[in-house]
């Protein structure tokens, strides 16, 4: 190919582009993989993923055991920071969602119940639904979205910036120093948030009941108090603690599995929310079956 007719600048650029010869064997070629091979790879990846998840849960369990024996270590200051992050700072969104869910439940119930002149039972419907199910599920989903993803992003970034390596080489186990405080904090805060969500859900329902269904506040409150049993209240609270543990474990697991780039931090956060929500709904289904069998 003749190049002498080209401008001098272009000739120099071409010479520069050819200065370092291509390394043999580095160019990537696209290889067609048959679907059966892809299926196999996916299955193997899935298997490896489950194994590492189980291993992580095992490590967390043994660290928790050491915590109860007081031989696990973490800084109380770290716990306080996480408690603040997933407690007080979550209040505004929990407030908004709970009131709205209470109102929606009241509306849905009202449409059916007023036909029979039984609008007073809207109070029962809202009370039982919120206290037993919606309070803890909605809080769980909110916390999975804001705190679970936050945990994954924090730990993932710490992995990318080698902060976790720095802990490891100092002989400070990251499970104890980073994961345990997050799990403990969420298990402590979830029941409190759940009670708060229960109350506000009922307030939302009462708002609709009093303003649109010709019920007095006293009637509504009396009906609500009569409808809630200690068992259904305790069921909701117990579930919320369990959901808290699930969200924290899912978030921390995804964070610790994070790769070494900033893109993988985003993936870890997304995956933490998905895992968290799936676990909450699946666990709630299990609880429903279990409680039904036990007759609670």
């Amino acid at each position, binding site marked *: 190919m003749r190049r002498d007719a080209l401008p001098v600048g272009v000739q120099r650029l071409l010479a520069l582009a050819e200065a370092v010869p291509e390394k043999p064997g580095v160019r990537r070629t696209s290889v067609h993989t048959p679907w059966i091979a892809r299926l196999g790879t996916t299955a193997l990846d899935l298997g490896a993923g489950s194994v590492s998840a189980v291993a992580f849960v095992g490590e967390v369990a043994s660290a928790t055991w050491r915590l109860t024996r007081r031989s696990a*270590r973490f800084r109380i200051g770290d716990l306080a920071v996480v408690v603040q992050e997933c407690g007080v700072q979550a209040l505004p969104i929990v407030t908004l969602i709970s009131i709205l869910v209470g109102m929606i439940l009241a509306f849905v119930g009202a449409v059916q119940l007023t036909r029979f002149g039984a609008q007073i039972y809207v109070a029962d419907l809202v009370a039982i639904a919120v206290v037993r199910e919606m309070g803890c599920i909605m809080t769980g989903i909110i916390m999975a979205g804001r705190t679970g993803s936050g945990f994954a992003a924090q730990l993932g970034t710490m992995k990318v*910036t080698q902060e976790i390596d*720095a*802990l490891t080489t100092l*002989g400070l186990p990251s499970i104890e120093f980073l994961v345990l405080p997050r799990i403990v904090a969420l298990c402590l805060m979830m029941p409190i948030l759940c009670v708060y969500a229960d109350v506000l859900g009922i307030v939302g329902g009462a708002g609709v009941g009093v303003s649109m269904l010709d019920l007095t506040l006293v009637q509504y409150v009396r009906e609500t108090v009569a409808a809630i049993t200690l068992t259904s209240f305790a069921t909701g609270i117990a579930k919320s603690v369990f959901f808290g543990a699930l969200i924290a474990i899912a978030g921390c697991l995804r964070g610790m599995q994070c790769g070494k780039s900033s893109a993988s931090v985003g993936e870890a956060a997304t995956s933490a929310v998905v895992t968290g929500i799936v676990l909450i709904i699946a666990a709630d289904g299990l609880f429903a079956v279990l409680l039904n069998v036990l007759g609670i």
Partner: protein
Amino acid sequence: MADPRAHIVVHALTLAYGDRVVLTDLDFSVKRGQVFIVMGPSGCGKSTVLRNLIGLDEPAKGDVFYGDVNFTRAAAGEREAILRRVGVLYQSGALWSSMTLAENVGFPLEEYTDLTRDEIRDVASLKLALVGLEGFEDYYPAEISGGMQKRAGLARAIALDPEALLLDEPSAGLDPVSSRLLDDLILQLRDSLGATIVVVTHELASIFTIGDDSIFLDPETRTVIAGGSPKDLLAHSTDARVRRFLTRGAEGDPGGRADG
């Protein structure tokens, strides 16, 4: 372990990520109280060597010894005991971002010594002063520059007065003056603490200023192709790849494949 002066000995080490072999047949020993340079072009696996020395990655084959103890085969407790006497500076500084500089430096002391809070604060201030960061005790890592983060990382690495100090690209990303100050500091640490210092770097100025001994890693053959004092290598090495690297490409075959 014939040489009693050997502090870290690497024997027949092969490093791999999964099936991909990064380096094979590494054999070298780092003498006590020397500055040992691990050098080579980008991507030759220098940082991987460091990760294997401190157990962040497990070698595919071979062993790492600290003194007479086989670190690679040691139990977890024994490893921790060895690592407590090793300070590490990571490439990015790796300061814990939720803690101030003083807390970062004080954290290892809090965990491993019986010092009171005030004493820990004093030691942390001293270590920060050593790296030229006096007065920055209550700053968070995000509030200071990259070079300062690196120096703070070094202060944390020397918090427990380690016998061995491993530094991953300490002067990368620093301006020439800060880089020079860091080199001086490394030499002072060697002379005053008697610490063994392993430095992973490709900064030529640093290599010639601080290096007592070195190995040169080659990405093509995936092993050590030269070793010795960097100044001697520059004066006497006949290997084209080594010459090309040490002279910033002024000498040696550009293809880098001439037999030395």
